């Protein structure tokens, strides 16, 4: 073998890079997130649980478009209770704790939705009302 001095370190770097997730995680299986269920005890969502897991972001985007671009802020009824279409108006009425609900999975999967560029969590909204 020729040029051992450069080729072997190069190959070592390559193998370390490819296997870096193994060393980074240190053989410790991650604990999957457990988002908190609505504190109010509500059982039903606007869609079944399985659909919401996969598609809540698609649904929220459709809601955003229909509310902001088509002015269709229709009422969503779940279990006889009426909600106005929207993240704060509907979703967060039950899922009131962003940190314990939204963020658990979003942090785990490193998803950084730009919902919160405009929207406020109920806690933030409350504090805003006090100051203004």
């Amino acid at each position, binding site marked *: 073998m020729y040029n051992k001095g450069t080729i072997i370190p190069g190959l070592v770097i390559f193998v370390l890079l490819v296997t870096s997730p193994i060393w980074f995680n240190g053989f410790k299986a991650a604990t999957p997130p457990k988002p908190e269920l609505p504190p109010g005890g509500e059982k039903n969502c606007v869609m079944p649980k399985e659909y919401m897991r996969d598609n809540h972001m698609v649904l929220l985007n459709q809601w955003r478009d229909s509310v902001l671009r088509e002015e269709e802020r229709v009422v969503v009824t779940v279990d006889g209770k009426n909600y106005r279409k929207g993240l704060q108006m509907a979703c967060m009425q039950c899922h009131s704790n962003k940190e314990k609900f939204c963020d658990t999975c979003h942090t785990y999967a*490193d998803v950084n939705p730009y919902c919160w560029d405009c929207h406020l969590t109920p806690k933030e909204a409350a504090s805003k009302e006090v100051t203004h």
Partner: protein
Amino acid sequence: MKYAFSFLAVIALILIAGLGSQIPGMQYLFGVVLPYLAIMLFVGGFVYRVMDWAKSPVPFSIPTTCGQGSSLDFIKQDKLECPTTTTEVAGRMFLEIFFFRSLFRNTKSEIHDGPKVTYESSKWLWLFALIFHYSFLVIVLRHMRFFLEPVPFVLSILEGVDSMLQIGQPAMYLTDVFILVGLLFLYGRRLITRHVKYISLNNDYFPLVLIFSIAVTGILMRYFLRTDIDIINIKNLAIGLVTFSPVIGAKIGAIFYIHLFLVCTLLAYFPFSKLMHMGGVFMSPTRNMANNSRSKRHINPWNDPEIKPHSYAGYEDEFREFMVDAGIPVEKELAAAEDKA
């Protein structure tokens, strides 16, 4: 119709994964066994290929040069095009690996009436190759979020930049568009340019179609076919794979297994294909050698050390009598040589 074969091969792969993963119990094969096999083939095959190259002797000093070599003091050397030191070689290699400098010099030659040959700079290959390779790199790095826990901050920044247009939810990635554009160009080039088409083989078309299908299935999975694509569930599987405790949790959609199977195919195919240029670019003697054969003798490694250099003077010493007998002119006459001796 050699390019049609690649499509057939990839369609067959998609069918295998799409149908196979729906058979109960087969999820473990497609989700755990094959990924492990593929990554082992990739790393093992890659190392084997590089070691194989490292064992091949380079008999001559063969750097390609395209600039003024090191010469007299008042002649300016082109240090990047004709490097003589290791630092200059490193500079040339850096530009080649990160900016594909040799493709920047790509020219198009055409014969016009006359007949007259023209050479014209053609930077399209360079541009789209850069777009494709860098998009692919960013996509691979973005996928690391499924394998690392906690996710490093830099990956979040990369993802933020990639989705900066904030189109739709999940947000559209720029690199998803760029990689398709790059691949379409690289594929189209092989179909449209006559002389490139002539030299293109199945093993040129297949990786392009395969990577294109990987990108398309990834895009479909992210934006369109979201049924049973629960990212948390998928990340659990991915983390499980790299911590050697894989679990197949809830049902995952077929599109995920198709995407994963195509990636496994790419990884397993990689070491046995032209895709090894990833390692080969470092190993190419025409690029990683310094053009210093005038100042430093290049020893052919396969020379037998028992065979000593034989100068002309030594040759004449050995055969002088026979040469004089045969009337061949010699530099030292017989008598003079004997006097000295």
